C-alpha cells in the first residue's frame, strides 16, 4: 500500500478538522449569521440555538452541566482566564499558587504575570517519569494557597498527571483547582464527575475542531467558583467572557467534542494506541539505544517521545522531512535551549537534543506507521554513521569521560 506524502504525525501541535465537524460548521458560515445575543428576531434565535447545542456537547464530553461552560478564543485564553481570573478573585484569602514545572506556557506565563502582581508561585518538580509526586503537592500547600493548576496530560511527553488525587487534596483544603485538559480530552476518559476540580481548559483544534475556539469549565456547585473576567465588554457568558460569540466556531467545537466522545467509546482511540504500540516495538527491534521520555504506563495513547541517542533532533527532522514531527532539541527552538519539559524530567541535555515527538491521530493509517518505522530506522542508521559520538561509543570510548569545551 502506498502512502501519500507528507505524513502528519504532529497531533499534539494541532489536528486536522474532522469532516463531520466541518459539515456541522458550514451552514453557520453560509446562511445562519445572526448574533446569538440578538434576542428579538429569528436570526438571533437560530444562532443562539446553535451555541446552546455546542454548549451541551462540550458539557457532555466533560460530564458537566451546560451552564458550567464558558466559550473562549482557545485554550490559551482559557488558561489565562482560569489562573488570572481565579487568583485575582481570591486574592483577599491569600496570594499563593501551586503549579508544575512542565505546564504549558499559557499556564506558566499566567503564573509569571501573577508574580508581578504580588503572588507567590510554587513550581513543583516532576519525577523521572514526568509525574507530579502527591507528597510534593501536599507539602507545597500553605495557609494562603488559593489556586492550583496541573495539566491532565503533558503536550510533549504525553504523560498523564494524577489530577484526581490532587483534586481531592485541593477540595479538602478549599483550594481552587484548575486542569489544563487540552491534550487529554478525547484521548483518555475524563469527567468532572470523577475528578474533583473547579475549572478545566478545553481546546477545539487539539481534538479535530477548528482553531480559534475553546472553552473553560467553571463549576457551579457549592461553593460556587467565582472568577474575575480578563476581557471586558457586553457581559456575555454570564459576565465571565465578553465578546460576540463565534457561532460557527462554537458549533465546530461542539461537534468536535461529540465526535471525540464517540471515538473514545467506539474504540477509535484503541486503534491509535495499537498503532503507537506497534511503532515503538518495531523501532526498538530495529535500533539500539532508544530512550522513551516519560512514563510508558501513564501516557496518552497517541504519544511517543523518543531520544535517538547520538542523533541530533533537528538533523533527524530534516532527514525525515516528509514526516511532520517535532523535537525537544535546542536547534529547533528560537531560544537555543532544549525542552524545559525534558529537563524537568532529569533527561540529560545530551539526550534532550536527540528527542523526537511523534503524535499519532485519528487520521493516521497503518501504512503511514509502517512507512515511518522504515524511514526512521533508515535515517537513524545514516545519521549515526555520520555521528562522531556514535563512532566513539562503538570504539568503547565513554563520552562522559571526555572534557568537552562548551561553546
Amino acid at each position, binding site marked *: 500500500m502506498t502512502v501519500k506524502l507528507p505524513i502528519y504525525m504532529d497531533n499534539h501541535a494541532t489536528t486536522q478538522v474532522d469532516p463531520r465537524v466541518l459539515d456541522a460548521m458550514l451552514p453557520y458560515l453560509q446562511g445562519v449569521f445572526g448574533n446569538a445575543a440578538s434576542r428579538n428576531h429569528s436570526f438571533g434565535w437560530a444562532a443562539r440555538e446553535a451555541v446552546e447545542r455546542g454548549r451541551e456537547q462540550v458539557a457532555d464530553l466533560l460530564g458537566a452541566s451546560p451552564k458550567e461552560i464558558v466559550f473562549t478564543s482557545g485554550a490559551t485564553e482559557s488558561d489565562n482566564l482560569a489562573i488570572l481570573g481565579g487568583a485575582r478573585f481570591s486574592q483577599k484569602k491569600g496570594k499563593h499558587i501551586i503549579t508544575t514545572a512542565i505546564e504549558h506556557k499559557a499556564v506558566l506565563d499566567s503564573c509569571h504575570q501573577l508574580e508581578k502582581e504580588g503572588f507567590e508561585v510554587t513550581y513543583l518538580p516532576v519525577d523521572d517519569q514526568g509525574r507530579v509526586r502527591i507528597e510534593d503537592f501536599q507539602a507545597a500547600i500553605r495557609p494562603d494557597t488559593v489556586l492550583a493548576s496541573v495539566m491532565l496530560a503533558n503536550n510533549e511527553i504525553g504523560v498523564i498527571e494524577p489530577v484526581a488525587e490532587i483534586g481531592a487534596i485541593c477540595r479538602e483544603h478549599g483550594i481552587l483547582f484548575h486542569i489544563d485538559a487540552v491534550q487529554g480530552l478525547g484521548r483518555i476518559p475524563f469527567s468532572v464527575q470523577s475528578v474533583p476540580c473547579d475549572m478545566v481548559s478545553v481546546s477545539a483544534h487539539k481534538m479535530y475542531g477548528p482553531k480559534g475556539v475553546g472553552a473553560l469549565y467553571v463549576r457551579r456547585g457549592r461553593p460556587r467558583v467565582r472568577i474575575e473576567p480578563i476581557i471586558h465588554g457586553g457581559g456575555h457568558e454570564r459576565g465571565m467572557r465578553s465578546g460576540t460569540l463565534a457561532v460557527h466556531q462554537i458549533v465546530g467545537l461542539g461537534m468536535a467534542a461529540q465526535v471525540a466522545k464517540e471515538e473514545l467509546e467506539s474504540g477509535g482511540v484503541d486503534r491509535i494506541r495499537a498503532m503507537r504500540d506497534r511503532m515503538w516495538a518495531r523501532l526498538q527491534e530495529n535500533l539500539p539505544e532508544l530512550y522513551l521520555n516519560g512514563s510508558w504506563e501513564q501516557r496518552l495513547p497517541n504519544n511517543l517521545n523518543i531520544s535517538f541517542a547520538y542523533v541530533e533532533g533537528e*538533523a533527524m527532522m530534516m532527514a525525515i522531512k516528509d514526516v511532520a514531527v517535532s523535537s525537544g532539541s535546542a536547534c529547533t527552538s528560537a531560544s*537555543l535551549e532544549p525542552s524545559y519539559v525534558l529537563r524537568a524530567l532529569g533527561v540529560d541535555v545530551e539526550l534532550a*537534543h536527540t528527542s523526537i515527538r511523534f503524535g499519532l491521530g485519528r487520521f493516521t493509517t497503518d501504512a503511514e506507521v509502517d512507512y515511518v518505522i522504515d524511514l526512521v530506522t533508515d535515517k537513524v542508521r545514516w545519521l549515526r554513521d555520520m*555521528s*562522531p*559520538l556514535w563512532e566513539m561509543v562503538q570504539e568503547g570510548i565513554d*563520552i562522559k569521560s571526555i572534557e*568537552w569545551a*562548551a*561553546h
Partner: protein
Amino acid sequence: MAYSDKLLDHYENPRNMGSMDKNADDVGTGLVGAPACGDVMKLQLLINDDGIIEDAKFKTFGCGSAIASSSLVTEMVKGKSVEFAEQLENGAIAQELALPPVKIHCSVLAEDAIKAALADYRRKQAAKAAANQA
C-alpha cells in the same frame, strides 16, 4: 527553518563523510563542540610532505547546518595548502551556505575544527621530528 538549496544539498549529500586513521602521523584530527550543546564535529586532514591537504573527512553530530558546514569545509580545503586552511574564516562558510543568524555558530565550529586538526597534525610532526633526532 528555511535553508538555502546549497545547505540542503550538503546536508542530503554530505561530501567526504567518514574517518581516517587517527593514529597516523600524516593525519591531523580535530574534535570540537560538546554533546551538551547539541553539536560535535570531527574533522580529519591527510597532509603530505609538501604541506598539501590530500584528503579531508568529517563526522558530525549536530543540526543540518552543522553537518552542511563540515561537509562544505572538507571541500574547501581538499587539495589546498596548510597555509590556506589556516586562514579560512567562518564567514566564508556562513556566506556560502547562507546560514541564518542563529546558525552562525555552526560555521565557527567548522573553523575551530580545522584549526584543531592542523594543531594535532603539527603536534604529531613535532613528536616525529623529536623521535628522529633522538
